[in-house]
């Protein structure tokens, strides 16, 4: 596993996850925000884009990188959900 491969793959997915989180329509509604959020089509494209770095790790045969990417995305996604819900609480 090249450390570089897994860090770059996870970083790219993390950035897109961040965008996905900020544009999540249900999250925005629950937090009382005015922005409608992304459309279904946009979210599908972003989700596909998140999976791309992982797919590349898998296709290069780097099982270790793939597993770390998958786990990393899970941890980062959950952390983003928690972090951006704290903001909503403070606004309330």
């Amino acid at each position, binding site marked *: *596993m*090249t*450390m570089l491969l*897994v860090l770059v793959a996870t970083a790219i997915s993390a950035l897109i996850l961040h965008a*996905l*989180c900020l544009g*999540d*329509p*249900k*999250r925005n509604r*629950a937090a009382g925000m005015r922005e409608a959020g992304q459309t279904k089509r946009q979210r599908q494209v972003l*989700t596909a884009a998140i999976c791309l770095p992982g797919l590349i790790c898998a296709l290069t*045969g*780097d*099982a*270790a*990188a793939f*597993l*770390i990417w*998958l*786990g*990393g995305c*899970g*941890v980062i*996604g*959950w952390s*983003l*959900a*928690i972090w*951006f*819900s704290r903001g*909503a*609480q403070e606004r*309330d």
Partner: protein
Amino acid sequence: MIHLKKDETKLMVAVHGWSGIVLGLLLYAVIFTGMAAVFAEEIGIWSAGHVETRSAFERPMDGSIRRLAAQTPAKYHEGVDLFEIGDHNLGAFFHRHETDPDGTLVSRGIYYQLDRKGDVAKALHGTGEEVFGPRNDDALSSFLVDTHVRLHVPNPWGLLLTGIVGLVMLVAAISGLLIHRHLFKDIFTLRRSASPVLVDRDRHSVAGTWSLPFAFILAFTGSFFSFFGTIGVPIVAMAAFGGDVQALNDAVFGNPGRPDPRPATMGNMDRIAADAIRRTGEVPTFITIENFGRADAKVTSFHPPKAGDIEPVTLLYDGAQAKFLHTKPSIGTQPSAGGTLAAIMAPMHFGNFAGMLSKAVWFALGFAMCYVTFTGLRLWLARRREDMRSLEWLDRTVMVVGFGLPFALVCSAAAFLIAMPLGSATYWTPAAFLIASGVAILGGTTAPSVAALGRALQFATGLVLAGLVPLRWISGGPGWGRAIEAGQPIIAALDLAFLLAGIWMVWRAAALPARRLPFPARPVPAE
């Protein structure tokens, strides 16, 4: 996401809820200790103050092994297991395989624990089950791992119990997936100012969704490990090898070839170890010698996986000539899909295939899964608020286990640090755990409210956690300067982590409100 019919959904909700509540507390204990056990090796180094970085396999061991063989009865030369113990010292188990009167296959022999200089510090006689217990300097990491693997219940019942707990987790993960209609739509939504049921539900389902693939992998690999020896091997041995477990063992792990019992001097083990390190670029984690002192002696060295792989690397040597033969698959005698599948179960469960990075990810996912289990239990209770009076005991029990378990574990760590220099760590580490558990249970019965109980336990845990650092220094553990100089920055890193985590927990507990928000009189129906 998956749209089941109404009554199917209702059944899955019942399966999910009841599988969770019946064994949920045990599941939480297994997952929590598993999460901590990811760093068992590092915790062992930190707690015992190990500063040696060179492996025992990088230092001369050939002389020691020959001396031990000379003083060991020849009947125990059938197998020699070599591994590291303590601060990179050598452990050697000379043994043979026997069948006990009750039919179980055991390894019986002599387990030598060597010190830095290669002299015998201790020699224990008996079966593998009997001799491989915790030692003074690894009592804390042993305690953690043993709690996780079998909840300290004797074999085979402990393994069967954790195996069943693993299956329950598998059922909960799959049923959770089936009942959650809007998995991706809800994935970032954590409502904070809604009813307690919705708040708990969001917490539970968001954490559960993000950790779902790993919940599945860990439940499945975990139950495999628990059932493998207790049920799997006897049944498959019966069906495919006429009940001969030794034959199954030899077939799967052994080396084929014609037996040649003529005596022959063993080749130089240092040469073998050096060659193995050169070929793989990694120090062995384990070395076994079959038929020590015979012409057909074989030496197998096990190494961490190559970069990018998760399956460990195994090298085979001719023992008498100290000559490299070939790389072999971890399981079986030739590479195969089945062998690879079995061999990747361990790295997928332990997360130790890529050093600290993979361990850190597995630890974080373990934390997420603890959170899912705990919030699931709280959600189950929140939905039944109407019956709360009769379920108050369960609400308190969940809080006692949820926050009492980490409290008891940090107390056992503190006891370890005090007792290890005195040589009584194997007694005081579990004893302190039991005493702290007793305190938590007492708190559970006397606390004015569940929220106050939670706050008090979090506060106490944070205090003890942060206190571990000065305690380690006071009890004679290496300081940061010495640790880093010796090439063990992990000691300083864990000190820092415990200090920060402890202070954060104390601060957070102090800031929590003493009373819960008022809740509705009737439970909110499931969505």
